[in-house]
């Protein structure tokens, strides 16, 4: 049950600290969460939250069609994300117990409260924009959703990091930035798809910013994780995260270079950005599961003192 492995980078020649396990069994329990529900929730929450900021910006900047379309997108995304969350509960009928206590030490409790504030705001903003009724309420709801949206996009990183899962907890400083960058990429992708070309300059700029932010955050996370970063590079997680990078880069480049003139290019770029964000979330999720299932990722970092 003893394995000795090579470290990467400049310490390539130094053998990894000898590590022992109990019949190769994991030390911690991996979450039983379904990837579709929870990684899907991370993606949808990000799309909704960053989308609400987009909607408010478009409204202020005189881009009414983008504003309305992004409000509808956020409402759809947050509804789907709430459905995914409830679906993943062992006892869906007891969903209301989430609001039984207000508990700052539980990111899931804080998220439930956030969601119960954000959801109705996103809903009111969308309904008012589509029907044209109650414009004042609509404007207030748009503002509220734009203020809560970034929190919705960021807190899911804390939800994942506040566990004993090595690939998530080890990156607890970097994960929020990765998640908000990915959320921005997703929302700008959606804006590129729904907005007319003459309104899409902000989306194209945001896509470029998000792509840069995402690659910086990923680099930083992998550097911080040390040997645990293997779980981000190998297996299913590795494939997903490499696809995420390729899709996001291609999407942002297409949108930036051609999306202002050509509607098909904008749509294509938008779809790639959305796909990239999906891959990022499912990739990080898969890395976490892989790191929980192999005892070396729990034992070796603890032996090395982080």
């Amino acid at each position, binding site marked *: 049950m003893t394995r000795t492995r090579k470290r990467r980078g400049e310490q390539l020649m130094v053998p990894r600290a000898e590590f022992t396990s109990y019949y190769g069994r994991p030390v911690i329990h991996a979450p039983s969460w379904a990837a579709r529900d929870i990684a899907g929730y991370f993606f949808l929450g990000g799309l909704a939250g960053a989308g609400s900021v987009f909607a408010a910006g478009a409204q202020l*900047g005189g881009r009414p069609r983008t504003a309305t379309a992004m409000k509808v997108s956020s409402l759809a995304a947050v509804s789907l994300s709430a459905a995914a969350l409830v679906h993943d509960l062992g006892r869906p009928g007891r969903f209301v117990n989430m609001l*039984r206590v207000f508990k700052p*030490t539980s990111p899931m409790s804080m998220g439930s409260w956030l969601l119960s504030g954000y959801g109705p705001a996103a809903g009111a903003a969308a309904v008012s924009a589509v029907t044209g009724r109650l414009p004042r309420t609509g404007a207030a709801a748009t503002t509220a959703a734009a203020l809560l949206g970034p929190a919705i996009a960021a807190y899911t990183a804390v939800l994942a990091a506040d566990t*004993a899962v090595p690939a998530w*907890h080890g990156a607890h400083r970097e994960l929020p930035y990765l998640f908000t960058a990915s959320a921005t990429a997703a929302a700008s992708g959606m804006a590129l798809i729904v907005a007319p070309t003459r309104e899409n*300059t902000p989306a194209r700029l945001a896509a470029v910013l998000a792509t840069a932010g995402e690659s910086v955050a990923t680099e930083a996370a992998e550097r911080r994780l040390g040997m645990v970063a293997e779980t981000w590079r190998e297996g299913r997680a590795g494939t997903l995260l490499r696809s995420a990078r390729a899709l996001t880069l291609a999407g942002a480049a297409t949108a930036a270079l051609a999306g202002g003139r050509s509607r098909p290019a904008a749509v294509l770029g938008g779809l790639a950005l959305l796909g990239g964000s999906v891959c990022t979330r499912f990739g990080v999720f898969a890395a976490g599961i892989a790191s929980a299932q192999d005892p070396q990722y729990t034992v070796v970092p603890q032996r090395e003192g982080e």
Partner: protein
Amino acid sequence: MTDRNLLSGPEPEPARDAGHPEPSERVGFFTDTSVCIGCKACEVACKEWNAIPEDGMALSGMSYDNTQGLGASTWRHVAFIEQRVPAPEGRTELPLANSAAQAADAAPDQGDLRWLMSSDVCKHCTHAACLDVCPTGSLFRTEFGTVVVQEDICNGCGYCVPACPYGVIEQRPDDGRAFKCTLCYDRLGAGQEPACAKACPTESIQFGPLDELRERAALRVDQLHEQGVEEARLYGHDPADGVGGDGAFFLLLDRPEVYGLPPDPVVTTRDLPAMWKHAGTAALSLAGGIALAFALAGRTKGAR
């Protein structure tokens, strides 16, 4: 109810900090694995008393261990480790098949076979990550300083499962809710000791006030060192460790990971303030980034 002023570090009175005005003395387990004989009386007594459902009868190929690990329906788990020890004077050898034949002319890297046995259980951490992250308040700190799940409140979100640094708590697949050792909360309330400690024939599992157990454990480890069992060590006894010390701690005869235990676990919520801080900054940078994109794009529509 679950509010605590500390997220990590020494915390002498977790029950009081959890809001019990007049807590009982904090109790726990000291599991001295050096006297464990692997009879599994604790596993059986636990299953019986707590009416835990059967959870598989497969043979694992892991020595005499067929329960394999703690989980939703295994709250005591006896680990069996077969080892070759290089130095025969390490500890009293158990006579195993062929051991006499090996004694004289065995190769230098072949020692005698030794068998480690250890009854694992929920650690009832001073800083319990499972309890900290539970969004419903289903997990709570009892007046005895132990950590218990309330079945009628748990909604099966499963957050406690990856939060536990020891891989203890788990959801039952057919039920969805999370289960783990209660340190026999019902028996404690009636002035009884937990079923496993009661059933243990060698007093490998000792139950009592935590302070007393810690003193007893320190004496026992000294005694073993005097007898030449140098590898004897305590695990989870230190209130200054990453989880503030365990309510259930151990005397081990090898490194913790050999038994499937994490060598230096930390309660994840120790880093929660940092996480919220970074999440706040990240949220602001999201808003700032999109605002910047709109500012650069300008107000006029149809700029292109």
